[in-house]
């Protein structure tokens, strides 16, 4: 079921009704080594989720037919826990709160910078730590244990 494209990068589903936005995000993620799939509204997004497993999903809130909240509700109802980041308008903190209550793990407000998009997606796809008494991932470990 795993489609090997040109990399083994994490699979990201992008659900966004604005084709320019969709293309931009997908291009950005591809360039960064992710594999992407897309959907143009909530229903399509749920269809994709039903068909495949994704490592993460980028979900626009404001969409026709079924909006991002609707998608989150449906996911919650069937127990789909794909880590999701919602895209919101600027300073819409109420939307963010609502999305998080519905199970979103992160948000990104438009407009966003490339770097932020990438770091948020990276956070989203980061494996849950195994919670072993382990060293942190990079070299400052030596300085911490001091």
């Amino acid at each position, binding site marked *: 079921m795993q489609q090997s494209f040109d990399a083994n990068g994490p699979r990201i589903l992008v659900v966004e009704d604005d084709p320019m936005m969709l293309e931009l995000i997908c291009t950005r993620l591809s*360039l960064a080594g992710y594999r992407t799939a897309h959907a143009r509204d909530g229903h399509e997004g749920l269809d994709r989720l039903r068909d495949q*497993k994704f490592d993460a999903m980028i979900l626009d809130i404001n969409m026709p037919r079924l909006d991002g909240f609707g998608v989150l509700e449906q996911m919650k109802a069937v127990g789909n826990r794909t880590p999701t980041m919602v895209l919101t308008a600027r300073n819409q903190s109420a939307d963010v709160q609502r999305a998080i209550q519905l199970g979103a793990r992160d948000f990104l407000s438009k407009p966003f910078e490339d770097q932020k998009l990438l770091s948020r997606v990276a956070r989203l796809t980061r494996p849950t730590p195994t919670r072993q008494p382990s060293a942190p991932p990079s070299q400052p470990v030596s300085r911490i244990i001091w």
Partner: protein
Amino acid sequence: MPEGVSHPAAPLAGPAEAVAVEDPHPELYRLLAENISDIIIRADLEGALVYVSPTCRLWGYEPEELIGRPSTDFVHPDDRERLLANTAQVLQGRRPDDDVDRTIRYRRKDGRWVWLEGNPRALRDEAGRVSGLINVFRDVTARKRAEAAALAAEAERQANVQLFENAFHHAPIGMALVGLDGRLLKINAALRALTGYSEPKLLSLDFQAITYPEDLDADLDLLRRLTRGEIPSYQMDKRYVRADGAVVWARLSVSMVVDGDGRPKHYVGQVQDLTAAHNARRALTESERRFRRLADNAPDMVTESRLDGVLTYVSPASEAITGFTPDELLGRTAFAFMQPEDAERMRAMCQTVRASNGAVAPWPIQFRATHKDGRPLWLESKPAFAVDPETGRFTGLNDVIRDVTAQKTLETELRRAQAEAEAAAAAKGEFLANMSHEIRTPLTAILGFAGLLAERDEMDDIGRGHLRRVLSASRSLLSIVNDILDFSKLEAASLELSPRPTPLVEFAHEVLLMFAPDADAKGLTLDFIAESATPDHVALDPDRFRQVLFNLIGNAIKFTPNGTVRLRLDYDRKTGRLKVAVRDSGPGLSPADQAKLFQRFAQVDGSSTRQHGGTGLGLAICKGLVEAMGGEIGLESELGRGATFWFEIPTPIADAPMAAAQSEFSPSSLDGARVLVIDDNRANRELARAVLEHAGTEVTLASGGAEGADLAAVTPLDLILLDRRMPGLDGVQTLKLIRAAPGPNDGIPILAFSADTDLDTLLGEGGFDGVVSKPIDVSVLIETVAAWIQWGAPVARLERDDAAVV
């Protein structure tokens, strides 16, 4: 002749056996003495009775029982002195004076007193010496009684006269005896006072002379009828002319006095001054007339009603206001014209006022009513209770009712207009927000794709140049759109400020330096002055502070062709206010332009927009921001002499979060990362924030475990710094809480913020991902955080089983 009898009118008398002297006609004397009603006695020099005529039987005595007793035994005690005095004179041989009172009261046998008039004469012996006396008593009781009665009658008459005189003279009303010809015969003080004439003057006049001419005929007519006996008396209200010419109202009562033959003698007139009463009545009438005039002519409807609401008076204005004439309203209740709920309010008001006994004043009530023609009316009632002045009880309700329909309509319209204006403002705000959002979305695409394009290697230099312009133009468009959104938030007062300790001087200087390239391009000098009182750190919202500075400095550079732009900071430690001034050497502004300056969308002139661009919102936003920070903004300028824009905001001095913020670390590694610092120690929190914010991190603070866990449940984060030891939930408990709750942060790294060295416990049982030791070492903190949020290259994780297929 009996001896000693010197007067033929007092014949000697005495019983034969008692009279020692020889009596030539004893039978004759006896007969005489025994048959006359007078009582004759003879007494010796000592006053003892020697002879008493049998007529003493009239008193109930027998002569025998009187003989030998002193006559004074029978005399009234009050009269004894007189009797003795009279007797002494006689015994001394003198004749008693004729005018001496010789009436004496003697006691009858039955104890009653009789008045006797004596006529004592001396008895002489042969030698001519007084040997005793003889007295003839006549019973004068009847005469005495008559005399007493006459005296009493006279006394009573005198008293009555006195009474009349007193009454006459001291009567509070004017009184006069008037002759048949009208001449004033006798007058009293009250009448003098009433007429103002002296007594002699008044007595020289007749009543006709002091009567007001118009009232004379009526008076004379009545007087004639009285004189003819057609009426027993009369009374009339008439006017008199006073001595000073003034006219007085009086009530005249006249009766006639007749003589013994029934012929008219004179008249008695009583004159009561009515001036006061008349004035009072006239004042009352006048005031009533005035009230009616007012009520009748008032544009407001004046009503009077009983306590049950039934109308007893309605002014004519009712017709203009309600369409009903007063007659149509009288007898109906005022409540009947009100809408039921208004009538209820009116009743409630009346009850409240009455229950308070007047302590609560009635208040105006607006009520709805219906015009006779059916259209709705708004009326305003201003009621007042009528109170009985004697008892203080409410007797009714007086009301002034005004037509406030127009006013009400206006109010309603105003309210509607206001609501519409508010709705329009809200719609405008929403429109601005929506529009800025709609514009931003394509802008994001433009910026994003231009960025993608810029990364392509095959672009030639010309292409890159064009692309840079696209990017630059897009960024400025984005900043304009952001301005608009800020402005709409300011208008809706929904801007949130988060003041925190900020290194003021350094911060402001950095903002100024950001304009160095623009200033250099125009050849402008940038100056920076911080007055000595300026503290190192103050509490303010640095983002908003920067935004204002940016605008002011940007404007100054934009409008200044050459010279200097100077940023000056001054701080008043007394008031805790920071004053920031941006002075330029530009063209300056006229007063008219200055006035327009802070208005939204206004630029000084249209050409300026074309020349300099911009939304015209910059200064309006600055004003809004400064005011939101509790300060004020203004400018001083003179045409041709540059301008100084300044703002002043309250900024408490803040503790410096140590010099740690001055880190040499590149902030880029942490740019945009979100860190939650949970620590009960404020200094630690602030230090961590200062360090991390300097490195570009968005920092959220919590002062305890519970607060931190709550925040973590709803705010997506990249990392949590968690103090180990805290009151309440400690670090380990808080960590477990955050990990256990499904949420945006259940998998993120949590670092122990601890002075402990027992790392094994923290990382093992404690469950922490890492440790940042206290005291904080700036570079360690930043490196540690950066290490944990270096996401690195994407990592496939499809092997994980939690991405279940729907």
